[in-house]
């Protein structure tokens, strides 16, 4: 039995069935991401002033990844347009770029994650004196990197110090802390540029709490990892589908080119949705 309306539009909807299906699916996706966005905004607006984590993400990397996704959206459309005029070779070329962009995005994102997992906040029992914005300040909370036995460990916590029986570790603090305003952060970063970073040797007994930038660190990182990991899963899923249609599924082009073109359109619609989510995620998580 033949599946109806794979290429020709239904009279009642005016669309082929897969297009109706993908839009219903995307509507559910809007609700999923919409709920998470709402959670982020409400938690941020309701946070006690000075406690919300901000200014810790790498903006140049985020910007580059945004450009990668915008490029991939353009190549998805160009590949679909190439099929519309019957140019299969050009379709393959553009879709290969799309797949490369998807892999590039995921690679860069994993690099970003790795950097966060080896970046720490330490809460101390006694305040120490550090230089921030050219001034010496007393603080019991520092952001920075750990060095232990010549390594920069990831995923350490207060518990790890006890489990590994760590007596002391080196800590290189950042010139900033998220309690500072964006203006103070910019000043502190500029003042610290080119200067040798300070270094501390902390005893495990001096540490009240230690946490890497993992979901358990704060509400911000919990939401950051939930939103970006969910988005990355969508990128991976989209890339797998696009690859299947591009590779093993391409034989349909010979038997049913119209249906094949519709498949490419449907995967392109999903891809555009994934990219549009990032267009909202980037400013919310990286800039605001």
């Amino acid at each position: 039995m033949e599946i109806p309306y794979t290429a020709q539009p239904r009279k009642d909807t005016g669309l082929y069935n897969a297009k109706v299906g993908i839009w219903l699916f995307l509507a559910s996706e809007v609700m999923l991401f919409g709920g998470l966005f709402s959670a982020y905004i409400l938690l941020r607006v309701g946070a006690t002033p000075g406690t919300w984590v901000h200014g810790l993400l790498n903006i140049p990397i985020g910007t580059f990844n945004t450009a990668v996704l915008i490029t991939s959206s353009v190549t998805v459309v160009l590949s679909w347009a190439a099929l519309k005029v019957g140019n299969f070779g050009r379709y393959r070329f553009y879709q290969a770029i799309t797949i490369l962009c998807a892999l590039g995005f995921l690679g860069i994102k994993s690099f970003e994650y790795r950097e966060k997992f080896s970046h720490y906040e330490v809460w101390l029992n006694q305040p120490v004196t550090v230089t921030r914005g050219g001034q010496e300040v007393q603080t019991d909370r520092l952001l920075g990197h750990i060095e232990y036995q010549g390594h920069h460990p990831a995923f350490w916590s207060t518990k790890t110090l006890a489990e590994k029986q760590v007596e002391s570790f080196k800590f290189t603090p950042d010139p900033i802390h998220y309690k500072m305003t964006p203006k103070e952060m910019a000043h502190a970063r500029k003042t610290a540029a080119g200067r040798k970073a300070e270094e501390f040797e902390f005893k495990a007994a001096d540490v009240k709490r230690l946490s890497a930038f993992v979901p358990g660190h704060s509400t911000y990182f919990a939401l950051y990892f939930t939103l970006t990991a969910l988005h990355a899963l969508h990128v991976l899923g989209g890339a797998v589908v696009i690859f299947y249609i591009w590779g093993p599924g391409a034989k349909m082009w010979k038997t049913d080119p119209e249906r094949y073109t519709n498949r490419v359109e449907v995967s392109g619609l999903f891809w555009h949705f994934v990219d549009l989510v990032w267009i909202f995620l980037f400013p919310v998580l990286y800039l605001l």
Partner: protein
Amino acid sequence: MSLKAFHIVFITAASALAFGFGVWSLRAYSSADGLTQDLCFGVGSLAVGLGLLVYERYFLKKTRNVSYL
């Protein structure tokens, strides 16, 4: 909504982001602690925003015969 229509929505959103990011970066540059990097991002982002609008116009022209549905 066809891929054509969604692409137009996406490119409009992307160019809005590029302009917004450009202004954000230039404001950061014009502050007392602005960095050259902020200026580069600002100018680059505004140029990308403009480029996306030009591309959108070209795309609309090229796909005149493709349905929005």
